[in-house]
């Protein structure tokens, strides 16, 4: 019997329902793929939702050019194996075209710059729905998101005026030029995602597992010293540690955590006992109290 009993099953059933609503209600949906565990989970859910037919929308990666090399390798292999269509748009191109300006200094990151590249790509392809892997448990502004979240012509989120969203009825009616951000795993926690990856035996990039890495410490966080996009002062000492990454965003703003977790079951255990949040290792959220909300208003995922 196909059941909805356990928590993780009901989350899966809900996410599949949302994927199908997207395919049915929109003309040109796209799945925003970052190469991280959440978007890998989304791909798995999309494959399951439409089987034995193909996933009826492409994936799109907004490449900051600062990705962990493992993520890119992984991405290309995944789309090939699953026969999916992949669109890549580069932040570097937006910089070269003079649309955005590269940040400089200690905390320079391309995380903010992604938004412009994303909004341009949405316009280029006339996407009307963008599926993303954001979860409500990640961050306090994200806790306020709807599952279907309307963005205006400028990609902006009107957080004080969201549509009511009742039961599981999703209203995807929009005007030309608007688009909807869709979050099928809104109600999943970080632990749920990892439990699902374990249960489904989903392959994920190696940087999520503990490995030896040259790192340096700053602001109580651990930064990779192996990649030159991470800014390091001369006097910041390089040491070698067993670490893993909990999120794999832009390398320049994603810190590592000390870890011995070399397998998925060990990662699940570690998350269960963790006393800091997933985004505790993201410097982009620490810029200010309202960093995420501001980015979202401007069109960030």
């Amino acid at each position: 019997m196909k059941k909805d009993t356990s928590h993780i099953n009901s989350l899966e059933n809900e996410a599949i329902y949302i994927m199908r609503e997207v395919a049915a209600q929109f003309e040109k949906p796209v799945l925003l793929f970052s190469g991280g565990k959440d978007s890998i989970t989304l791909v798995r859910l999309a494959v399951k939702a439409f089987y034995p037919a193909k996933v009826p929308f492409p994936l799109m990666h907004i490449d900051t050019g600062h990705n962990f090399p493992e993520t890119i390798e992984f991405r290309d292999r995944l789309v090939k194996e699953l026969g999916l269509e992949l669109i890549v748009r580069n932040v570097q191109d937006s910089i070269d075209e003079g649309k955005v300006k590269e940040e400089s200094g200690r905390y320079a990151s391309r995380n903010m710059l992604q938004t412009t590249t994303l909004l341009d790509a949405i316009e280029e392809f006339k996407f009307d729905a963008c599926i993303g892997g954001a979860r409500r448990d990640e961050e306090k502004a994200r806790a306020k998101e709807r599952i279907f979240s309307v963005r205006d012509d400028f990609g902006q989120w009107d957080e004080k005026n969201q549509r009511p969203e009742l039961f599981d009825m999703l209203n995807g009616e929009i005007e030309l030029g608007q688009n909807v951000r869709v979050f099928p795993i809104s109600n999943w926690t970080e632990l749920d995602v990892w439990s699902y990856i374990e249960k489904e035996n989903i392959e994920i990039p190696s940087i999520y597992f503990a490995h030896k890495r040259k790192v340096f410490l700053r602001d109580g966080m651990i930064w990779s010293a192996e990649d030159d996009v991470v800014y390091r002062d001369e006097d910041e000492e390089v040491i070698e540690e067993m670490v893993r990454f909990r999120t794999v965003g832009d390398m320049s703003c994603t810190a590592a955590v000390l870890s011995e977790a070399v397998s998925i079951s060990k990662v699940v255990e570690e998350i269960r006992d963790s006393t800091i949040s997933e985004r505790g290792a993201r410097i982009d959220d620490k810029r200010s109290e309202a960093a995420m909300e501001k980015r979202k208003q401007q069109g960030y995922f």
Partner: protein
Amino acid sequence: MEVLKIATAGSVDDGKSTLIGRILYDTKSLTTDKLEAIEKTSKQRGYDYLDFSLATDGLVAEREQGITIDVAHIYFSTKKKSYIIADTPGHVEYTRNMVTGASTSQASIILIDARKGVIEQTNRHFFINNLLRIKDVVVAINKMDLVDYSEEVYNKIKADFSELMSKRDYQDQNITFIPVSALKGDNVVNKSEAMSWYKGAALLEHLEQLDKADIFNAGTPRFPVQYVVRPKTEEFHDYRGYAGKVYGGDLSVGDDIIVLPSKTRSKIKDIYFYDEKYETASRRSSVTITLENDINVSRGDMIVKEGDIPTIDKQFTANVCWMDSNQLTAGGKYVIQHGVNKVLAKVDRINHKINPDYSGIDKEATGLNINDIASVTFKLNKPIFYDQFKNHRTNGSFIIIDTQSNNTVGAGFIQ
């Protein structure tokens, strides 16, 4: 693990967000970085206590004004259960967001400020909770620290609230009273020493022992077709699968079914979940079904068991919660979304407006203003297949969409 979805309710400043923050703090569910952020902000503002509402009030405007504007969904777990709490706003202006949070919850916590007692907004939120047929309601009488933890105050509020209870429509709703102080932590996670006169359970203890009630109540199976799966590959050349979520009851291979609206008969051939076949699909599972006969089925159609069909009609009457600043009036045209089905609808008449303070109805009402609740009859451009809300939550509810703005402007519960 069992999941319990809860929504908060009650008037502005009654302490809903503080209560949730307190639960998170006392169950050690706040991660170190989040706790540090709360400590830092509380200190900056010169408070000599931790402002736990900062744990859920995530928007800048909310933190500046010290009120909740939109629902925050908060996740935490104990050894026994996983909890999803929707912290909803108390302000009248944001009632639509309160309804959003409450619609998917099976239990709710209505807060009352012990100094103020039962007020208009308490009535309204209780009314909505009852309209939504939420199974378990906790009435948390909060800020007991400000009334010297007085048993008399508690008893007075309890008596006032009980009067409302006697008038409610859905009488089977379970209601429990708990005196608390969200700020100080009395009877939230830990039993209060200051209120030894209260013999019942603390809030969390009470929630831990609630039965797992299925909010999408059991009944008869309804399968609204969401999406038609046609692979058109060599391997699955003739495959035509109907993807959707099963509501109300189970569906099994071999069941005699009827497809609505065509009323074509067939049998369930296979039930797929991804690449596996199952004998039965239980309710709330997102499956793909194939039928014995090659018939024409499309999105918005509904597959039901023979002998168990819903009402098929081009007109119905419902209790409507109006959520838009533009009035709803007789003759108004809207799109009604019933499950995954969309139809054009015209307001035939407003039968009466309901006073959410249980003081009666207004039969003369000609228009609905924001936050009004009323009995409304609609006429549709084509039939839908519905059940009464009290028998079938999913198949008995709908949303109203404005054809100009595309906004969701109301919600309805079919009578």
